[in-house]
Every structure is written in C-alpha cells, then in structure tokens.
C-alpha cells in the first residue's frame, strides 16, 4: 500500500471519534437524500400507479378533439389480440349538475364529473371497482357510484338512496335523470373518482345522445415496458386521417399531473443535496481538527523528506476513507429505510400507499457524490497542512 494512504488511513481510523463523526455526517446526508427519494419518488410512483389503475391504463387512446366513433367492441377486440395487452375498456366522460334530497332537504345543485364505464370491460382493465368501499360497482343502467367527496357534499346519502343529475346532451337539450346509489368510491389521496360519479357507459351515451360513441379507451398491459410498442402498433393499424386517433403512454397522458410533481421532487432533491453540502462543512471542520492534532507528525514527515504533495495526499486519502465509510454506512441506512418502507407499505400522510422501489442508480449516484464531496471537503485542510514548515510544525505542536 502507498505509504501516504497507509498514514492517512491510520490517522483517521485511530481517531475513532473523528472518524465516526465525519462518517456519520456523510452517512446522514446520504440517508436524507434516500429518505427524500423513498417518500417523494415513492409518492410519484404511487400517483403513476393510481393513474394507470383508475384513469389512463398503460396506454390511453382518444380521438383528437372528438369522440371515438369506431365501435369500441371492435377496437377492444383488436387491442386484446396483442400479446402484451391484458385488457382494454371504454370510457366516456361528461359533466352534470347533481342534487339530492336528504331528510327532506334539497342539497343544492353543483357540477360533478361523470365517468361512464362498461362494467364488463372495466373490471378487467382497471381497479376502480376495488375502490368501492360500501355497496357495489355500477351494475345496472340507472345505478350510480358516488365519489366520497360528492357523497359528503350531498349530506352523506346512503346506498339505496337516489340522486338526480341534469345533463346537457350534444344538441344542447337538458336531460334530467334519477339514479340509485349502489356504492361509494373512495381512494387514498383522492387519486380515483372521489370528486365525481360513475355510471353505466350505455346510459351516458343515451343521455348525451351519442350512441356507440366512446370518449377514451384505456389499455392495461401485462408488460408495462411495451407501452410504446402497443401505442405504435395501434397508430400504425389505424392511420386514417378520418380516425384521428391519439394514443399516449402513461407518461404522456398524465403529464399534466406528473410534470408539477417532478418539479417538486427536483426541488426536494436539491434540498437534500444542500444537506449534503452542510455535511461537507462538518468534514472540513473535522479534517481541520485532524490537521491541527497532527501538526507534529506533519513536521516530522516533512523533515525526513516528505514533499508538500505527499502531505496533501495523506489528508486526501483520509477524506477518501471518510467518504467511503460514510457512503457505505449511508447506503446501509438508506437501503434499510427503503426496505422498512417497502415492508410496512408506508403511506404518505396516512393515506396514499407509497410505491417504493429500489433506485440503485440513484443510490450509486448519491454515494459517488458524497464520496467526492468528502474528498473535496478535505482539500482545504490538506492544503493548510502542506503550508506547515517542518521546524515550525515540530516546535509548536
């Protein structure tokens, strides 16, 4: 082993207090970044997961600025012949004014989002039906599932009660329709249809006077990595200008929701990296103390022939030891926390279950950054050490 490395390692490993303090500073900085990653990347992944499960599927097919007029039956059959496609389901969205009478009191009208689903297809392509906590999913023509927030706003009507919805059809006519509540849907983090209602798609088509029309088709894949392939297959199979189909992967369809969140994650990561900078100051302080306590040894080394760059390298190696131990410790702590979050199905603020994944690339990047930072933090103390003249160093030590 290089003697400068040997001395650097001995200097720091035989000062256990300094080594533990400096390594912990690095490790805690890594842990902070890891915790941020587990929570916020987990939250991001959870949102993506729920957007896939409840709203968009892995591939989301619409028609540019219009309704899909081709038969949904035909399109779904075509899609489900692709080996990577698990299932596909049609959806039709609209808006209606809703009111309810509870204990003889009319809860005034307000607008809600109405999602029309086909119960047969939807239960295979989406997990929205699993979010119905009380009651059941849409099962007959005039049944309705209320979002939990709508239920609350309407004064908590129960399953079996009725609500009235007023639609405007495609010709501008008001259509008033009474529905029987069959279930209440509630999702963690309100990622589902908590602020809307779900009805049968054929009922909605009839109300809007849009027979056989579909708003969108969500496609669930058994291999999510093939989303782009499925998208391209679909678009190349239906290239006609008349169709004007638009197919999007989840990253594209949920872009509006996710882009803001990505910025938030970037900001949180920045805060984490600033935390890492503060750990670098701790390393600088401890290294300065090391230089101070080793002044005599530096003087002796210089007297017996070590050059200034040799002294510099001793403390750089010391920084490398701190960086390596800190990075190792931080990784263990970070992976431990990730495992804990994964095993306990950690939730965000007690609601949305985080989608925790090991981001090994991120872990390695953070480790490398912390390691390099520990070395950089050692440069100034090391440089100060090289400025010591041997006679002065030995005299004042």
């Amino acid at each position, binding site marked *: 082993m290089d*003697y400068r490395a040997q001395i650097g390692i*001995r200097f720091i490993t035989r000062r256990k207090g300094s080594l533990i303090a400096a390594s912990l500073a690095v490790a805690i900085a890594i842990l902070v970044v890891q915790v941020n990653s587990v929570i916020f990347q987990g939250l991001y992944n959870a949102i993506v997961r729920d957007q896939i499960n409840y709203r968009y599927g892995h591939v989301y097919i619409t028609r540019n600025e219009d309704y899909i007029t081709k038969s949904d039956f035909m399109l779904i059959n075509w899609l489900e012949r692709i080996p990577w496609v698990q299932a596909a389901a049609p959806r039709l969205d609209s808006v209606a004014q809703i009111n309810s009478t509870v204990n003889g009191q009319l809860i005034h009208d307000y607008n809600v989002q109405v999602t029309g689903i086909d119960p047969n297809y939807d239960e295979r392509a989406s997990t929205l039906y699993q979010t119905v906590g009380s009651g059941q999913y849409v099962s007959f023509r005039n049944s309705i599932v209320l979002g939990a927030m709508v239920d609350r706003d309407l004064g908590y009507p129960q399953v079996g009660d009725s609500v009235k919805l007023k639609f405007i059809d495609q010709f501008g006519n008001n259509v008033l329709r009474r529905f029987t509540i069959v279930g209440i849907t509630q999702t963690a983090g309100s990622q589902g249809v908590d602020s809307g209602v779900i009805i049968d798609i054929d009922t909605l088509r009839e109300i809007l006077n849009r027979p056989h029309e579909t708003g969108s088709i969500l496609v669930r894949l058994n291999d999510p990595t093939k989303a782009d392939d499925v998208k391209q297959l679909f678009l190349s199979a239906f290239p006609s200008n008349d169709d004007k189909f638009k197919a999007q992967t989840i990253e594209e369809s949920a872009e509006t929701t996710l882009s803001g969140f990505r910025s938030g994650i970037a900001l949180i990561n920045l805060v984490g990296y600033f935390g890492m900078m503060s750990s670098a100051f701790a390393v600088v302080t401890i290294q300065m103390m090391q230089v101070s306590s080793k002044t005599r*040894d530096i003087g*002796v080394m210089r*007297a*017996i*022939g*070590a050059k200034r760059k040799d002294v510099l390298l001793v403390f750089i190696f010391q920084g490398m030891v701190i960086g390596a131990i800190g990075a190792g410790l931080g990784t263990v702590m970070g992976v431990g926390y990730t495992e804990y979050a994964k095993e306990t199905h950690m939730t965000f603020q007690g609601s949305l279950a985080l989608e925790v994944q090991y981001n090994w690339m991120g872990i390695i990047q953070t480790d490398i950054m912390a390691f390099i930072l520990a070395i950089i933090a050692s440069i100034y103390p090391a440089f100060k050490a090289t400025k010591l003249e041997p*006679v002065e160093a*030995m005299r004042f030590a």
Partner: protein
Amino acid sequence: MPDNVLEVHNAEKIYGEGETAVTALQNITFTVKKGEFILIVGSSGSGKSTLLNMIGLLDRPTQGSILVDGVDTSTLDDNHLSSFRNSKLGFIFQFSNLLSDLTVLENVLLPRKIQGTVDGAAQEARTLLKTVGLESQMHKFANKISGGQAQRVAITRALINKPAIVLADEPTGNLDSISAETTVHLLKSLNRKLNQTFIIVTHDRPQFGEVDKIVTIKDGRIVEGELETSLR
C-alpha cells in the same frame, strides 16, 4: 566522494527585517569529515538549534552557503530539498518524534517509503532494530514503547537510508540517566561500526566523553579556539 560531508561557509541567520531584525547566527564557518562525531554545544538561546536546522536543511541561511556531500544546498528548490533531506540526512529529535499511529517497524521504514526504495527495506529495518535491541518491539505502536526505546527507534529511522550525516538535537535531553547513557553509547558505537557521521547538539558536553570535534556557539558565533578542539 568529497572528504568533507559538510561545509558551512559564512552562514548567517537573521530573523525579521529592519529595526526588529534579530541576528541568530553570524560568520559560521566549519567543515565536517566523513565518519566524524561532532558536538555543537552552547547555552540555551545561543543559536545551536538554529545552526542544526540550517545544516538539516529545515531552515535556510540568510547569507552564506551550506554544502552537504559536495552539493550546494542553496540551489535546491523545496521539492529537491525534501528529496535531498531524505537521502542525505538523518534526524534524531529530542522527543524522538515517532508517528504514534505507526508501528515501530513502520516508523523505521518511513524514510525508505518516502524515497520509494522499499525492496529489502524491511529486512534492513529488522537488522537495524536488532542492532539497537528492539527486534521484539517492532510490531508495537510507537506510543506503546518507553522513551528510551522510542529514541533508539528514532536512531534506527535516522540510519535506514544510510545518510551522509545524522543530526541529533538534544537526543538525551528527554531521557533518564540510564537511557541517556545507553543512547550515547549506541550513537558512538554506530559511529565507529558504520563510520557514520554524527552532528549532535547538546548542552551536556561531558555526557558524550571523547569526540572528534566540538563547535561551541555563543551569542550566535563560534567561539574562537573551541572549533578544532579534539577530545578523542
């Protein structure tokens, strides 16, 4: 190989500038031949340690020149000075100044490692440690041995690179009388056995008995008539 391993010509050392300038040494001229055992003596503050630092190339004279093994050291830059110190000079300090985080053997080997000539060095170090009676202590950390033992390790470290001159600054100053006597005996026997040149700063001249030359420093000058005194 020049006869003189050390030539000091009109060396002068002044600290500070202008009105605050203090002359620590002036008109220092003397030579040392290979294999000589030299004492530099003088009272506290006389400038003997300053002179040793200049000979040891740890400090530069304000004026004059110092030639070690025929090389004018004033022409050497900082890096070359370090290499030169490493290969031509050995140091023994009053407080031994071993690196406490290294073992005895590692301390002895350090000058060789700095030099980059480690082949066979471990065996040489073991042989030297055996010579000074510390073979059994070689794997102990330096802070786990006694002061007398530490000073013998320092002597071994000073010799490992086979320097032209070994410089010792009060080598017995921090030792009890028995250890001091052992150390003096060891230095003198190494001088005879290895024909190794020693220059020793001490305030305890009688402790060293007969030597080749004594340089007496008083108020920064060599006291006339004392330079060539030979007690051997």
